[in-house]
Protein backbone atom coordinates (compact mmCIF):
# COMPACT_ATOMS: atom_id res chain seq x y z
CA UNK A 1 0.00 0.00 0.00
CA UNK A 2 2.75 2.42 1.04
CA UNK A 3 4.86 1.29 -1.92
CA UNK A 4 1.97 1.95 -4.29
CA UNK A 5 1.52 5.40 -2.77
CA UNK A 6 5.23 6.18 -3.13
CA UNK A 7 5.25 5.05 -6.76
CA UNK A 8 2.16 7.12 -7.51
CA UNK A 9 3.68 10.22 -5.88
CA UNK A 10 6.89 9.71 -7.84
CA UNK A 11 4.99 9.50 -11.14
CA UNK A 12 2.95 12.57 -10.21
CA UNK A 13 6.15 14.46 -9.39
CA UNK A 14 7.70 13.53 -12.74
CA UNK A 15 4.59 14.76 -14.57
CA UNK A 16 4.51 17.97 -12.51
CA UNK A 17 8.21 18.64 -13.11
CA UNK A 18 7.76 18.19 -16.85
CA UNK A 19 4.68 20.43 -16.94
CA UNK A 20 6.52 23.08 -14.89
CA UNK A 21 9.22 23.29 -17.52
CA UNK A 22 7.02 22.78 -20.55
CA UNK A 23 4.16 25.19 -19.94
CA UNK A 24 4.40 28.40 -21.98
CA UNK A 25 2.85 30.57 -19.25
CA UNK A 26 5.21 31.61 -16.45
CA UNK A 27 2.44 32.15 -13.90
CA UNK A 28 1.09 28.62 -14.34
CA UNK A 29 4.67 27.38 -14.23
CA UNK A 30 4.97 28.84 -10.73
CA UNK A 31 1.69 27.22 -9.69
CA UNK A 32 2.87 23.84 -11.02
CA UNK A 33 6.12 24.36 -9.12
CA UNK A 34 4.18 24.93 -5.90
CA UNK A 35 2.19 21.77 -6.61
CA UNK A 36 5.52 19.99 -7.10
CA UNK A 37 6.57 21.23 -3.66
CA UNK A 38 3.36 19.89 -2.17
CA UNK A 39 3.95 16.51 -3.85
CA UNK A 40 7.50 16.30 -2.53
CA UNK A 41 6.14 17.11 0.93
CA UNK A 42 3.97 14.00 0.69
CA UNK A 43 6.95 12.00 -0.58
CA UNK A 44 9.19 13.12 2.31
CA UNK A 45 6.46 12.18 4.73
CA UNK A 46 6.05 8.74 3.13
CA UNK A 47 9.81 8.25 3.46
CA UNK A 48 9.33 8.93 7.21
CA UNK A 49 11.14 12.27 7.25
CA UNK A 50 8.46 14.54 8.76
CA UNK A 51 10.99 17.20 9.74
CA UNK A 52 12.05 17.70 6.13
CA UNK A 53 8.42 17.47 5.01
CA UNK A 54 7.48 20.34 7.31
CA UNK A 55 10.27 22.52 5.92
CA UNK A 56 9.35 21.64 2.34
CA UNK A 57 5.67 22.40 2.98
CA UNK A 58 6.40 25.92 4.17
CA UNK A 59 9.37 26.80 1.95
CA UNK A 60 8.69 24.81 -1.22
CA UNK A 61 4.94 25.11 -1.45
CA UNK A 62 4.56 28.50 0.25
CA UNK A 63 7.25 31.13 0.51
CA UNK A 64 9.28 30.34 -2.60
CA UNK A 65 6.13 30.30 -4.76
CA UNK A 66 5.14 33.72 -3.45
CA UNK A 67 8.65 35.05 -4.07
CA UNK A 68 8.55 33.74 -7.66
CA UNK A 69 5.09 35.26 -8.24
CA UNK A 70 6.25 38.63 -6.88
CA UNK A 71 9.32 38.54 -9.12
CA UNK A 72 7.04 37.70 -12.05
CA UNK A 73 4.70 40.60 -11.28
CA UNK A 74 7.57 43.08 -10.98
CA UNK A 75 9.17 42.19 -14.30
CA UNK A 76 7.85 42.71 -17.80
CA UNK A 77 7.00 39.89 -20.16
CA UNK A 78 8.53 40.06 -23.59
CA UNK A 79 8.95 37.39 -26.19
CA UNK A 80 11.87 37.43 -28.59
CA UNK A 81 11.75 35.71 -31.95
CA UNK A 82 15.36 34.57 -31.79
Amino acid at each position, binding site marked *: MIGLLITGTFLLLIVLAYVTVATPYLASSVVYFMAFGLGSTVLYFLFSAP*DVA*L*TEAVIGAGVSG*VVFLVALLQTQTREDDA
Partner: protein
Amino acid sequence: MSFKKTIKLKTILTALLVSLLSILLLKVITQVPLTSQALGITLLDLNRDLTHSANAVTSVVTYFRGLDTLGEVTILFLSIFGVGIGIDRSTQMKTILHYDNTLLKIGAHVLFPVIILFGIYIIVHGHLSPGGGFQGGVVIASAFLMKFLAYGDAYELDHRILVLFEALSGVGVVVLGLLGLLSGGLFLSNVLPLGRLGTLLSGGIIPLLYLFVGLKVAAEITVLVEYFLRTQDARDA
Protein backbone atom coordinates in the same frame (compact mmCIF):
# COMPACT_ATOMS: atom_id res chain seq x y z
CA MET B 1 40.36 31.35 -35.18
CA SER B 2 42.08 31.74 -31.84
CA PHE B 3 38.71 32.46 -30.24
CA LYS B 4 37.42 29.11 -31.41
CA LYS B 5 40.51 27.38 -30.07
CA THR B 6 40.12 28.81 -26.56
CA ILE B 7 36.53 27.65 -26.42
CA LYS B 8 37.59 24.19 -27.47
CA LEU B 9 40.35 24.11 -24.86
CA LYS B 10 37.86 25.17 -22.21
CA THR B 11 35.46 22.43 -23.24
CA ILE B 12 38.19 19.81 -23.13
CA LEU B 13 39.34 20.99 -19.70
CA THR B 14 35.77 20.94 -18.41
CA ALA B 15 35.24 17.43 -19.73
CA LEU B 16 38.51 16.29 -18.13
CA LEU B 17 37.56 17.86 -14.81
CA VAL B 18 34.08 16.33 -14.86
CA SER B 19 35.41 12.87 -15.68
CA LEU B 20 38.10 13.14 -12.99
CA LEU B 21 35.54 14.18 -10.42
CA SER B 22 33.15 11.39 -11.40
CA ILE B 23 35.97 8.83 -11.11
CA LEU B 24 36.79 10.18 -7.63
CA LEU B 25 33.10 10.08 -6.69
CA LEU B 26 32.76 6.49 -7.93
CA LYS B 27 35.84 5.51 -5.90
CA VAL B 28 34.41 7.08 -2.76
CA ILE B 29 31.03 5.46 -3.31
CA THR B 30 32.53 2.01 -3.84
CA GLN B 31 34.96 2.27 -0.92
CA VAL B 32 32.68 3.63 1.78
CA PRO B 33 30.77 0.71 3.32
CA LEU B 34 27.02 1.07 3.61
CA THR B 35 26.78 1.31 7.39
CA SER B 36 24.05 3.88 7.53
CA GLN B 37 21.73 1.53 9.41
CA ALA B 38 24.34 0.76 12.09
CA LEU B 39 25.20 4.45 12.31
CA GLY B 40 21.54 5.27 12.82
CA ILE B 41 21.20 2.74 15.63
CA THR B 42 24.37 4.08 17.30
CA LEU B 43 23.03 7.61 17.02
CA LEU B 44 19.70 6.58 18.54
CA ASP B 45 21.51 4.94 21.49
CA LEU B 46 23.68 8.01 21.98
CA ASN B 47 20.60 10.21 21.78
CA ARG B 48 18.79 8.22 24.48
CA ASP B 49 21.77 8.46 26.83
CA LEU B 50 23.07 11.94 26.15
CA THR B 51 20.24 14.30 25.29
CA HIS B 52 16.89 12.81 26.47
CA SER B 53 15.26 14.31 23.38
CA ALA B 54 12.32 12.35 22.00
CA ASN B 55 12.98 13.60 18.45
CA ALA B 56 16.33 12.14 17.43
CA VAL B 57 16.60 14.38 14.35
CA THR B 58 16.52 17.42 16.60
CA SER B 59 19.31 16.15 18.79
CA VAL B 60 21.45 15.45 15.73
CA VAL B 61 20.82 18.93 14.35
CA THR B 62 21.31 20.90 17.56
CA TYR B 63 23.48 18.69 19.75
CA PHE B 64 25.74 16.40 17.75
CA ARG B 65 25.98 18.91 14.92
CA GLY B 66 25.27 22.12 16.81
CA LEU B 67 28.17 23.99 15.27
CA ASP B 68 26.75 23.34 11.79
CA THR B 69 23.45 24.85 12.90
CA LEU B 70 25.30 27.96 14.07
CA GLY B 71 26.93 28.11 10.64
CA GLU B 72 23.56 27.79 8.91
CA VAL B 73 22.11 30.61 10.99
CA THR B 74 25.13 32.75 10.14
CA ILE B 75 24.72 32.02 6.42
CA LEU B 76 21.04 32.98 6.63
CA PHE B 77 21.97 36.24 8.34
CA LEU B 78 24.57 37.02 5.68
CA SER B 79 22.13 36.33 2.85
CA ILE B 80 19.50 38.61 4.40
CA PHE B 81 22.24 41.21 4.80
CA GLY B 82 23.05 40.90 1.10
CA VAL B 83 19.39 41.18 0.09
CA GLY B 84 19.06 44.27 2.27
CA ILE B 85 22.04 45.89 0.61
CA GLY B 86 20.86 44.93 -2.86
CA ILE B 87 17.19 45.83 -2.65
CA ASP B 88 16.46 48.36 0.05
CA ARG B 89 17.87 51.55 -1.51
CA SER B 90 15.02 54.05 -1.18
CA THR B 91 12.32 52.81 1.14
CA GLN B 92 10.31 56.01 1.01
CA MET B 93 9.71 55.62 -2.71
CA LYS B 94 8.44 52.10 -2.52
CA THR B 95 5.15 50.56 -1.46
CA ILE B 96 4.45 47.00 -0.50
CA LEU B 97 2.88 44.92 -3.24
CA HIS B 98 -0.59 43.88 -2.10
CA TYR B 99 -4.10 43.18 -3.32
CA ASP B 100 -7.27 44.92 -2.19
CA ASN B 101 -9.35 41.89 -1.47
CA THR B 102 -11.88 41.74 1.35
CA LEU B 103 -11.81 37.97 1.50
CA LEU B 104 -8.01 37.94 1.82
CA LYS B 105 -8.10 40.66 4.48
CA ILE B 106 -10.66 38.87 6.67
CA GLY B 107 -8.92 35.53 6.14
CA ALA B 108 -5.56 37.00 7.10
CA HIS B 109 -7.07 38.66 10.13
CA VAL B 110 -8.63 35.41 11.36
CA LEU B 111 -5.77 33.07 10.48
CA PHE B 112 -2.85 35.24 11.65
CA PRO B 113 -2.94 34.31 15.38
CA VAL B 114 -3.61 30.65 14.56
CA ILE B 115 -0.57 30.42 12.29
CA ILE B 116 1.63 32.27 14.82
CA LEU B 117 0.47 29.86 17.53
CA PHE B 118 1.20 26.87 15.28
CA GLY B 119 4.71 28.21 14.61
CA ILE B 120 5.38 28.67 18.33
CA TYR B 121 4.06 25.15 18.95
CA ILE B 122 6.43 23.72 16.33
CA ILE B 123 9.40 25.59 17.86
CA VAL B 124 8.62 24.72 21.48
CA HIS B 125 7.91 21.05 20.73
CA GLY B 126 10.97 20.73 18.49
CA HIS B 127 12.55 18.12 20.75
CA LEU B 128 9.33 16.10 21.09
CA SER B 129 7.69 16.00 17.66
CA PRO B 130 8.78 16.70 14.07
CA GLY B 131 9.81 20.28 13.50
CA GLY B 132 11.99 22.72 15.33
CA GLY B 133 13.47 26.16 15.10
CA PHE B 134 13.81 26.51 11.34
CA GLN B 135 10.41 25.09 10.48
CA GLY B 136 8.54 26.99 13.18
CA GLY B 137 10.38 30.20 12.37
CA VAL B 138 9.41 29.97 8.72
CA VAL B 139 5.79 29.22 9.66
CA ILE B 140 5.73 32.42 11.76
CA ALA B 141 7.30 34.36 8.90
CA SER B 142 4.65 33.04 6.49
CA ALA B 143 1.95 34.48 8.78
CA PHE B 144 3.61 37.90 8.39
CA LEU B 145 3.85 37.32 4.63
CA MET B 146 0.07 36.78 4.54
CA LYS B 147 -0.49 40.01 6.47
CA PHE B 148 1.72 41.90 4.01
CA LEU B 149 -0.11 40.46 1.00
CA ALA B 150 -3.49 41.38 2.46
CA TYR B 151 -2.84 44.81 3.97
CA GLY B 152 0.28 46.18 2.30
CA ASP B 153 1.53 49.43 3.75
CA ALA B 154 -1.38 49.61 6.18
CA TYR B 155 0.35 46.85 8.13
CA GLU B 156 3.43 48.31 9.75
CA LEU B 157 6.17 46.29 11.36
CA ASP B 158 8.48 47.82 13.91
CA HIS B 159 11.89 47.02 12.54
CA ARG B 160 13.58 47.90 15.82
CA ILE B 161 11.77 45.02 17.55
CA LEU B 162 12.68 42.64 14.71
CA VAL B 163 16.34 43.66 14.86
CA LEU B 164 16.28 43.31 18.65
CA PHE B 165 14.83 39.77 18.41
CA GLU B 166 17.31 38.81 15.72
CA ALA B 167 20.36 40.16 17.55
CA LEU B 168 19.37 38.84 20.98
CA SER B 169 18.68 35.33 19.70
CA GLY B 170 21.92 35.30 17.74
CA VAL B 171 23.81 36.32 20.86
CA GLY B 172 21.83 33.75 22.84
CA VAL B 173 23.00 30.85 20.67
CA VAL B 174 26.63 31.91 20.99
CA VAL B 175 26.34 32.50 24.74
CA LEU B 176 24.81 29.04 25.21
CA GLY B 177 27.67 27.58 23.20
CA LEU B 178 30.27 29.43 25.26
CA LEU B 179 28.58 28.32 28.49
CA GLY B 180 28.95 24.74 27.27
CA LEU B 181 32.57 25.44 26.42
CA LEU B 182 33.19 26.76 29.94
CA SER B 183 31.47 23.94 31.82
CA GLY B 184 31.79 20.85 29.63
CA GLY B 185 34.83 21.68 27.54
CA LEU B 186 32.91 21.45 24.26
CA PHE B 187 31.15 24.20 22.32
CA LEU B 188 27.36 23.83 22.74
CA SER B 189 27.67 20.96 25.21
CA ASN B 190 24.82 20.56 27.65
CA VAL B 191 24.72 22.75 30.77
CA LEU B 192 21.11 22.20 31.90
CA PRO B 193 19.46 19.19 33.61
CA LEU B 194 18.26 16.68 31.05
CA GLY B 195 14.80 16.04 32.47
CA ARG B 196 12.53 13.09 31.76
CA LEU B 197 12.31 11.79 28.18
CA GLY B 198 9.16 12.97 26.43
CA THR B 199 8.21 15.87 28.68
CA LEU B 200 8.20 19.50 27.56
CA LEU B 201 11.08 20.50 29.85
CA SER B 202 13.55 17.90 28.72
CA GLY B 203 16.54 17.63 26.44
CA GLY B 204 18.81 20.04 28.27
CA ILE B 205 19.70 23.08 26.17
CA ILE B 206 17.94 21.85 23.01
CA PRO B 207 14.57 23.62 23.60
CA LEU B 208 16.34 26.87 24.52
CA LEU B 209 18.61 26.61 21.50
CA TYR B 210 15.67 25.97 19.19
CA LEU B 211 13.79 28.90 20.69
CA PHE B 212 16.69 31.18 19.79
CA VAL B 213 17.05 29.68 16.31
CA GLY B 214 13.29 29.96 15.74
CA LEU B 215 13.12 33.63 16.74
CA LYS B 216 16.15 34.39 14.57
CA VAL B 217 14.77 32.60 11.52
CA ALA B 218 11.31 34.16 11.95
CA ALA B 219 12.72 37.69 12.16
CA GLU B 220 15.10 37.18 9.26
CA ILE B 221 12.61 35.61 6.84
CA THR B 222 10.03 38.28 7.71
CA VAL B 223 12.49 41.04 6.85
CA LEU B 224 13.50 39.19 3.66
CA VAL B 225 9.88 38.84 2.53
CA GLU B 226 9.20 42.51 3.24
CA TYR B 227 12.21 43.53 1.16
CA PHE B 228 10.99 41.39 -1.70
CA LEU B 229 7.45 42.74 -1.57
CA ARG B 230 8.51 46.40 -1.54
CA THR B 231 8.07 47.61 -5.07
CA GLN B 232 7.87 50.74 -7.11
CA ASP B 233 4.21 51.36 -7.78
CA ALA B 234 3.75 50.71 -11.49
CA ARG B 235 1.10 53.44 -11.83
CA ASP B 236 3.40 56.11 -10.43
CA ALA B 237 6.45 55.12 -12.41
